């Protein structure tokens, strides 16, 4: 049994109900999992001896703007043992959007989740340090949301006074 089939079989048997979709496009394996199960799922794929996805390379999000479940959180994880990349997606249902933080599984997720929070306004529950990263503290908007104007909202970012 090749690696890809092993991965799919293992995930299916463990997370049958929570697994929403499995796609394999141009050798790129993606799985969509329901957001309630994300932490459990990540723990499993990291600690399972056959899979061992030890590295979290990226956490980001997609704003679908018009769709009902507007936000999708995307994780890119990597297995050194198998030299294999896996993409995990979770479609968020809540408003305001929230999902469990995966920092207990991968420490590297800390900054990625902060960045995603900063730019999309997605709350990562139980994140140890959910603060603004690029934008100043106290900024009210989320710049990578589709309804944010490219030139920003006038007056939302204060400039120093020009007094001479």
């Amino acid at each position, binding site marked *: 049994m090749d690696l890809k089939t092993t991965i799919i079989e293992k995930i299916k048997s463990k997370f049958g109900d929570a697994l929403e979709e499995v796609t394999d496009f141009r050798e790129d394996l993606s799985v969509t999992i329901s957001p309630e199960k994300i932490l459990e799922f990540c723990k499993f794929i990291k600690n399972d001896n056959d899979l061992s996805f030890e590295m979290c390379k990226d956490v980001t999000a997609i704003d679908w703007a018009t769709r009902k479940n507007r936000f999708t959180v995307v994780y890119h994880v990597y297995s050194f043992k198998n030299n294999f990349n896996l993409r995990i997606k979770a479609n968020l249902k809540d408003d305001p959007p929230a999902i469990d933080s995966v920092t207990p599984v991968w420490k590297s997720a800390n900054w990625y989740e902060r960045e995603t929070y900063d730019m999309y306004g997605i709350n990562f529950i139980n994140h140890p340090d959910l603060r603004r990263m690029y*934008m100043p503290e106290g900024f009210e908007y989320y710049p990578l949301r589709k309804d*944010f104007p490219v*030139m920003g909202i006038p007056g939302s*970012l204060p*400039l120093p*006074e*020009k007094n001479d």
Partner: protein
Amino acid sequence: MGLEAKLSSDGYLTTKLDAIIAWARSNSVWPMPMGISCCAIEMISAADPKYDIARFGSEVMRFTPRQCDLMIVAGTVTYKMAQVVRRIYDQMPEPKWVIAMGACTSSGGMYRSYNVVQGIDQFLPVDVYTAGCPPRPENLLNALITIQNKIKKSKARDYQDKILPELELSKN
């Protein structure tokens, strides 16, 4: 022979105070290198032996605002960075001048977006804008010469009421 012969015998000359102060100021401009991105590399090049900013008496890059009278803002100024640039400018003693070096600093450049200030003239009084992305070192030297000409026309009394910046130590 002319002025030189006169000086060697008497050892003094007469001039206007404004003229000699402006002359001294214009030939000892000390820049505060506010290098933020790629323009900063061109600014550094201006100090190397090939372009030799020392010819203009401006080789003393101080990296502290206290002793500077020219701020070269070289790079992309974001809204977050604007607070820092303004604070450093405020800490420079009068009289002081500002060069906006490059497209980003002058107008936001290619960054027409929410996070980049579309021109530092929104929070700083700019004396010379330098075109280019980034400008060549010669272009920066040209800006420096323009500033020198401006200084040469200045009067000492224009600055006599200006006060030294106060330390904001109690705030931090």
